[in-house]
């Protein structure tokens, strides 16, 4: 009798314990994040008491960026930023950095759950701009910009705003950096010189073949051409082939650059595509491309180890050979443009910052962003950290990052505001920003610069075409399969997926857009 009573009591307590622990663990997560943010806001509000400014209430700006895992020493830098910000706009900033691979998903969760945040990085390749605008996740900024962002308005050329507009309204601020799109190639200097290969003479893919042949013959263990599924020759020579994308990379439908009639064509049916596949297939069969290219996501490790001779760069920017040298394991490289420079909607909206619908003080978020354009110190602290702690200044005025200091966004300067505010890294020529602005200004505009595609009327066809393209594009474009057999199959499946309706819709929207804008 006694025993059973005791065991009953035991089950009861055990049950209760389980329940309590479950409830507690359920709350655990949200508690810890709330603690983190409240701690910083408490700390900052005490500081604010000392430096109260104007009529602005203290406000914390939450900013999501796509710049790799959170930096270890972010708190120190945030404190330095906040000290400045409190004086000027009585705000503090809370930066949440998410790694490149997860940013897309993370932002979808953040936005779908209605979380309160102020700013986020958005682009056509991450945290998709158009989809978020269609879903109503971003605030229209036209009025806010006029009121609170004098510097941004002054700095950014009109063409940038045109590119960012969706249905006549601006939903994100383009970051000011390289906007021109110029396809380029990156070649290891030592190998190019050894085999007397002058990258400047390249005008078509065939010109590369002799160099690959020499490397294959002469260099053991070096891949002549670093093609992977993340570095496909077709996508990275789209401008060289004379095309501009309409609804996204690898979505059927392009126009020819320089075609005043802006006729929509299916790039996968073009002669250029066919020719490209033939050459790449030839490279693959001769072993200039790795046999597993179609399943390889990148070759960064191989590049660092000096085992790659050549890659298609994608987009040229002045001074790119400095970054290229680091990627190719310290070997000097030639980074050479192989196409004309164009301004494309896609190349301008590749880096932007949007204000969330859930922001409680969008005006302050815009003011903060304006400061990033205006205030070089603010920009440089954000990008490089604190002097002598995270970076050193050399005698010639260039700076050098201190290794393992816990803060380094020097590779992600394009993520924030105006990159032309940045200090020069060691090895970067002091005229690269001027050169970049010059390139931006001299580049020719695409006939559909400023056009944005609304996928809503054809989203069924778009989803179907996407799935077909992702099945075939990688194996064809890495040369892993015979294009004579697979290309007709691919085109046929696109037809079934409704590519014609998609192309017709693209043409319709472009014609409408041209009419509306008097082009």
């Amino acid at each position: 009798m006694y025993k059973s009573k005791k065991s009953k009591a035991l089950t009861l307590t055990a049950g209760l314990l389980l329940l309590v622990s479950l409830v507690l663990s359920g709350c655990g997560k949200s508690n810890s994040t709330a603690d983190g943010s409240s701690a910083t806001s408490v700390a900052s509000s005490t500081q604010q008491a000392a430096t109260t400014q104007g009529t602005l209430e203290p406000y914390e700006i939450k900013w999501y960026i796509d710049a790799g895992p959170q930096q270890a020493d972010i708190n120190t830098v945030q404190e330095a930023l906040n000290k400045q910000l409190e004086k000027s706009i009585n705000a503090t900033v809370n930066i949440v950095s998410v790694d490149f691979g997860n940013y897309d998903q993370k932002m979808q969760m953040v936005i779908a759950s209605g979380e309160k945040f102020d700013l986020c990085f958005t682009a056509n390749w991450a945290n998709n701009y158009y989809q978020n605008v269609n879903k109503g996740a971003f605030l229209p900024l036209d009025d806010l910009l006029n009121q609170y962002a004098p510097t941004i308005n002054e700095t950014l050329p009109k063409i940038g705003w045109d590119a960012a507009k969706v249905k006549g309204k601006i939903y994100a601020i383009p970051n000011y950096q390289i906007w021109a799109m110029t396809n380029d190639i990156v070649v290891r200097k030592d190998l190019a010189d050894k085999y007397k290969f002058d990258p400047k003479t390249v005008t078509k893919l065939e010109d590369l073949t002799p160099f690959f042949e020499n490397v294959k013959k002469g260099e053991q263990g070096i891949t002549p051409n670093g093609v992977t599924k993340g570095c496909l020759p077709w996508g990275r020579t789209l401008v060289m082939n004379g095309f501009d994308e309409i609804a996204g990379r690898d979505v059927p439908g392009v126009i020819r650059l320089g075609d005043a009639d802006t006729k929509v064509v299916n790039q996968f049916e073009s002669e250029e595509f066919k020719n490209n596949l033939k050459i790449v297939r030839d490279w693959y069969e001769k072993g200039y491309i790795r046999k597993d290219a179609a399943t390889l996501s990148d070759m960064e490790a191989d590049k660092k180890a000096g085992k790659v001779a050549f890659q298609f760069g994608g987009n040229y920017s002045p001074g790119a050979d400095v970054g290229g040298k680091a990627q190719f394991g310290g070997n000097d490289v030639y980074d050479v443009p192989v196409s004309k420079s164009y301004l494309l909607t896609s190349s301008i909206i590749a880096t932007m910052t949007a204000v969330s619908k859930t922001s409680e003080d969008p005006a302050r978020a815009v003011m903060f962003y304006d400061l990033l354009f205006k205030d070089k110190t603010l920009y440089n602290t954000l990008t490089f950290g604190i002097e002598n702690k995270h970076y050193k200044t050399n005698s010639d005025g260039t700076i050098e990052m201190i290794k393992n200091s816990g803060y380094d966004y020097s590779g992600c300067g394009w993520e924030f505001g105006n990159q032309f505010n940045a200090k020069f890294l060691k090895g970067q020529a002091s005229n690269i920003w001027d050169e970049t602005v010059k390139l931006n200004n001299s580049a020719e505009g695409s006939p559909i610069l400023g056009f944005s595609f609304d996928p809503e009327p054809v989203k069924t066809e778009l989803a179907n075409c996407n799935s077909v393209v992702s099945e075939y594009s990688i194996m064809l474009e890495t040369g892993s399969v015979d294009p004579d057999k697979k290309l007709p199959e691919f085109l046929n499946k696109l037809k079934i997926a409704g590519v014609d309706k998609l192309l017709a819709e693209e043409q319709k929207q472009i014609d409408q857009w041209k009419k509306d804008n008097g082009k």
Partner: protein
Amino acid sequence: MFKKNELIKDTIKNKGLLLLAIPGLLFLLAFNYLPMVGIIIPFKSIDFAKGIIRSDWVGFNNFKFLFSSGDIIRATTNTIISNLLFIIATLIISMAFAIMLFDMSRKAVKVYQTALFVPYFLSWVVISYIVYIFLNPDMGILNQFLKAFGSEAINWYSEPKHWRFILVIASLWKNAGYYTILYYTALMGIDSSYFEASDIDGATKFQQIKSISIPLLAPLIMLLVLLQIGRIFFSDFGLFYFIPKDSGALYPVTDVIDTFVFRSLKNNPDLGMTAAAGLYQTAVGFILVIVVNKITKKLNPDLAMF
């Protein structure tokens, strides 16, 4: 009136047990029942500004993409064929292992049990690299073997014909251990007097397995198979996405509903369309469970789940 009293009495009598069940029930409620409200999502065009409830109704528009392309048929057949193969292979292999384990000494059982169970805890990403070591076209172990014996190397990641088999092996390697342990535990639960009696009657091992082990395990087998069939329209995304390294050339056999939906919506994520695919899978899975259970009931009422 009488029934009500009974219920109260029952509750009071079992209050300890009921209390113990609360966490589990809450879990079920929070993760299985509350999300069912989301069943309206496939029929709406979701606009975050308006919220789920106030978004516009669009009828069956979101389901169109599933059925307008020919690929859904291929994906559905692949899902069913692969899952059937997995269910059969897992059943046979893990039963065999369980019966073998049952005849081993305690110490040996522990070693084998652990060895079988470890892969279950590995993620598909890790396993995909192990598979890659074997199948790498240039330096893979299998191709080295083929070359050593004078055959031609196979470019595994672009030859779909081998992949049904490779997927079954990968699935077995990861999951068979888990089921082995379930069956082994059930075998341990069988009254040992059956085996002793049959020993005295001079039954062979094979006869014992046929007439004692398998019939007594039948309810568990049925239960596990039913559960698996209920999920036959859902595929293990990790297995089908990572093991073939998402190679387009292999889609004719490796593309299943989950990977198909993932691929279609990757560049254009639309909540409504994703949810439509989920509803399609669940609805068909639900029908399958009911049907299989009905059939089981006809054949042997004791084995049916409900």
